[in-house]
């Protein structure tokens, strides 16, 4: 799952010509550390939902990579 998430996040970054990341850690902040804005977060939810069938932002926004993992593991 972590590798797939890294792949999805890098696809979103690449699509906006932003710098890709090499690895993913739970404490990474989606906006501040990875540099995703609200358009990117929207795309991220669509791609995560297509892959894992979970809308991670459904009940409010998530801040970190770890929070996404938590929702996917529920």
């Amino acid at each position, binding site marked *: 799952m972590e590798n797939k998430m890294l792949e999805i996040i890098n696809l979103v970054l*690449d*699509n*906006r*010509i932003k710098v890709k990341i090499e690895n993913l850690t739970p404490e990474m902040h989606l*906006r*501040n550390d990875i540099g995703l804005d*609200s*358009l990117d*977060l*929207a*795309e991220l*939810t*669509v*791609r995560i939902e297509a892959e894992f069938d979970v*809308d991670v*932002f*459904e*009940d*409010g*926004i998530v*801040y970190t990579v770890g929070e996404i993992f938590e929702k996917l593991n529920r």
Partner: protein
Amino acid sequence: MDFFFKDTESCKHIKWSKLLDDIDDTLFYNKYCNSSDYYIVFRQIVVSMLFGKEIILLDADFTENELLKLTGFSVFEDFNETLDKSNFLMPSSKESLIERLKSTNNNWKIILFTSGTTGIPKEVVHNFESISRFVKFSKIKTICIWGFAYNPTHMAGIQVFLQALLNGNPIVRLFGLTSAKILNEIEFNKITHISATPTFYRLLLPCERKFESMQRITSGGEKFNERIKEQFLMIFPNAIFNNIYASTEAGALFASHNDLFSLEFGFEHLIRIENNELLIHNSLMGKAGSKVQEWYKTGDLIEVVCDKPLSFRFISRNSDIINVGGYKVNPIEVEEIILTHPGIINVRVFSKSNSVLGNVICCEVLRENTSVDELSIRVFLQSKIQEFKIPRIIHFVSELTTTRTGKIKRNYI
């Protein structure tokens, strides 16, 4: 705490006296306003009102291509003109400035561009009466502190700006800041009023802090999810929630505390209902281009709950225009631009509902060959249309999905 405008992003803290000095020092005027600096936009609007000059608001992120299409120009320096101050009496105080602005000459024009129902954004022209019609005045209003949560060159932004300006309220920029900075600004400045899109509010969650200063939270467009509303009641325990109905041409029209809207006294003659569709009188819209019928069909369907006084609920909103986090996207405009890509045969642009932005733009593409990929389409579009209009999900298909009548489907993925 009394100031005109504060913007932590550009380190600006503008007192009223500074605004007055800057107006006094202004020697040149340019009717085109195309700045990413909120203060420059606000100051230019104020100068245009004081001198009765036309102002044309352009989004700072319009591409060169969009500027050319909309105005015929992509640079505007040649439009600088010397400001004739020979008969101009400079306001000496905040109060006299506001009084002068309230009596802005009705020849003054403000022009903005909004996503129309066909092709490229269309020009909407307002005069002072039509754009300030819904500004409210009262003694209580003079002690508000506004969090500014819209793009300053859009209709909603202008309406919030005028509401604050004409009541002499301080304005604090919140739009475009990170959620942590927004919450800090609300706390530090004791902000009392915010009007914003549901997306703006959603991005503030989760939040464990409390802000007692907040008195009113206004939102429009999609309805607040009840769970999100509950969380907001915890964060802003003293706030009243307000729901507004706004159109891109006329701005905010009706307000309500729930999904039942009623008309304010004196506006009954300005709306009409035909076949359950809401029609608004063109005097509310300014002049949207040159071809305006007396009654404008909003495309929004309503259910009348009570005839006198009129109250109603919205059943469905105009479906072609896609609301992406408060930005209106016309799928036809996006399709037209995508079709200028040499490797693309056909395209269908549609929306998919999304928990972050309300909707995201998606498209299906019929391509010449596989060398046309997702990234190359995005790079192509980046120089042509604003970022929020670019499809976030691109599917490559061998034929486009159409309805049984042969029309392109827009609300289906």
